[in-house]
C-alpha cells in the first residue's frame, strides 16, 4: 500500500515539475502579435472628413490614370484581334457576323467588310477599291483603332484609289506636277501601323455573294 502511495506521489511531483517547465518555456516564446482586424476608428469627425477627402482624391487619381492607360494596356483591341488572323499589307475578307461569333464587336451585319493591316516601315501602301453595287467606303485607323480618314465611293467615283504614307515618306515625294495631280490621293498616316477597313453595303440579302465577289477585287499592297 505504501509503495503505491509513494509512486503516486512521485508521478504527481514529476507532472507538476513538467508543467512548471512548460510554463517557463512558453513564457520565453515571443508572443505572436495578431493584427487587429477591426474597423479602423477615427478619432474625431474632422479626421473622418480628412480621410474621406483623401480617399476621393486618390480615387480620382486612380480613375484618371486607368482611363489614360487603357489604350496602352488593352490587350484585346481591334488591332490585336485582327493581327491574330491575318498578315500585314494584305487585304483579307472578314467572315460575316453570326450569332455564334463575330470577328470584331459592333460590326454592321448589313455590310461586307475587308481588313488590311498596314505597316508603312518599308514602303507606302496603295489601296485600290473598285466600287461595288452599292455604298462602299474605306476607313483608315491607327493601331489604337482611332479613325483618321474615311472616304466613300460617292466622293471618290468609280474606283477608290488611295496612297497611305507616313509624314517622312510624304515629304520625300518628288515634287512633280504630274504625280501630285488631283487624281492621286495621298493620305498621311499619323502612325506607322494601323488598320484599313473596306466596307460594302448589301442592299438585300440575296446580293451578298455578288457584293462579296466585287469586294474581293479590292487590293492593298506596298507601292514598290
Amino acid at each position, binding site marked *: 500500500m505504501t509503495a503505491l502511495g509513494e509512486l503516486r506521489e512521485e508521478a504527481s511531483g514529476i507532472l507538476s515539475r513538467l508543467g512548471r517547465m512548460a510554463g517557463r518555456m512558453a513564457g520565453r516564446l515571443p508572443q505572436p502579435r495578431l*493584427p*487587429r482586424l477591426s474597423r*479602423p476608428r*477615427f478619432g474625431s469627425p474632422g479626421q473622418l472628413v480628412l*480621410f474621406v477627402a483623401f*480617399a*476621393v*482624391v*486618390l*480615387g*480620382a*487619381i*486612380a*480613375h*484618371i*490614370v*486607368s*482611363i*489614360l492607360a*487603357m*489604350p496602352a*494596356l*488593352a490587350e*484585346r*483591341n*481591334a488591332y*490585336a*484581334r485582327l493581327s491574330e488572323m491575318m498578315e500585314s499589307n494584305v487585304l483579307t475578307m472578314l467572315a460575316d*457576323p*453570326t*450569332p455564334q461569333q*463575330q470577328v*470584331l*464587336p*459592333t*460590326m*454592321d*451585319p*448589313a455590310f461586307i467588310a475587308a481588313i488590311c493591316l498596314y505597316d508603312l516601315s518599308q514602303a507606302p501602301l496603295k489601296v485600290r477599291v473598285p466600287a461595288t453595287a*452599292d*455604298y462602299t*467606303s474605306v*476607313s483608315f*485607323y491607327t493601331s*489604337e*483603332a*482611332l*479613325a*483618321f*480618314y*474615311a*472616304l*466613300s465611293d*460617292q466622293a471618290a467615283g468609280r474606283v477608290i484609289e488611295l496612297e497611305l504614307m507616313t509624314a517622312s515618306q510624304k515629304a520625300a515625294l518628288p515634287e512633280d506636277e504630274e504625280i501630285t495631280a488631283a487624281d492621286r490621293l495621298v493620305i498621311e498616316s499619323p502612325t506607322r501601323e494601323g488598320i484599313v477597313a473596306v*466596307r460594302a*453595303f*448589301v*442592299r*438585300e*440579302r440575296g446580293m451578298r455573294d455578288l457584293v462579296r465577289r466585287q469586294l474581293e477585287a479590292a487590293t492593298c499592297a506596298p507601292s514598290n
Partner: protein
Amino acid sequence: MRLLPLAFTLLIATILGLGVTWFSVTHSRGLDVVRSGAWEGWPRAGTAKADPYARAAVARSGELPLELADGLIFLATTDDAGNPLDGRCETRIVGILPQARLWTLTLTDQDGNLIPNDAGRSGFTSAEAVYRQDGAIDVRLSPRARAGNWLPTGARPRLKVALRLYDAPFSFTSGAADAAVLPRITREACL
C-alpha cells in the same frame, strides 16, 4: 496604429477609382454624347478627336468605330419612357429617319451579339424595310412573328438596338442641341 486607416483609405480609393473606370468604359463611349429620345450617339468617338473616355472604351471593346465621314451610330437600350428593352415584350420603333444615303437597324442582345432565329433576320436596311404612307418606318421587336417589319427578339431579357446612318449630311459641330429627331421607341405589351 495610424497605418491601418491609411491602408483602408488607399484600398477604398483604388476600388472606387477603378470601379468608376470600369463603369464608364462599359456604359459609355465618351463624353460628347448626343441624345435623341432613348438613342445615344457619339459622333466623335473613334475619330482622332476622341476624348480619353472614348479612347478607353474603344480599346476595351476591341471594335472599329465608324468614322463620322462614313456613318454615325446610335444605340438604344431603353425605350423612350426609360424602361429597358425587354425581348419578352413587344416594342415598336416608329418614326421618320433623318436624311441619309442609307440606314441600317440592327437588333442584338445586350452584349452586342446577334440573336439567332429561324428567319435569319437581325435587322433591316433602308432598302428592305416597308415604309408607311408618310415615309415613316414602323419596326416591331417581338418574340412572336408579326406582320410588317418584324425583328425576332428570341425572348432575350435585354436588347440593344443600333441605328446606323451612312453618308448623313448633318453635323454635330454645334453641340448636342441639333441632334436630328430619331424614331420613337415605345413598349406595347409584355407577355
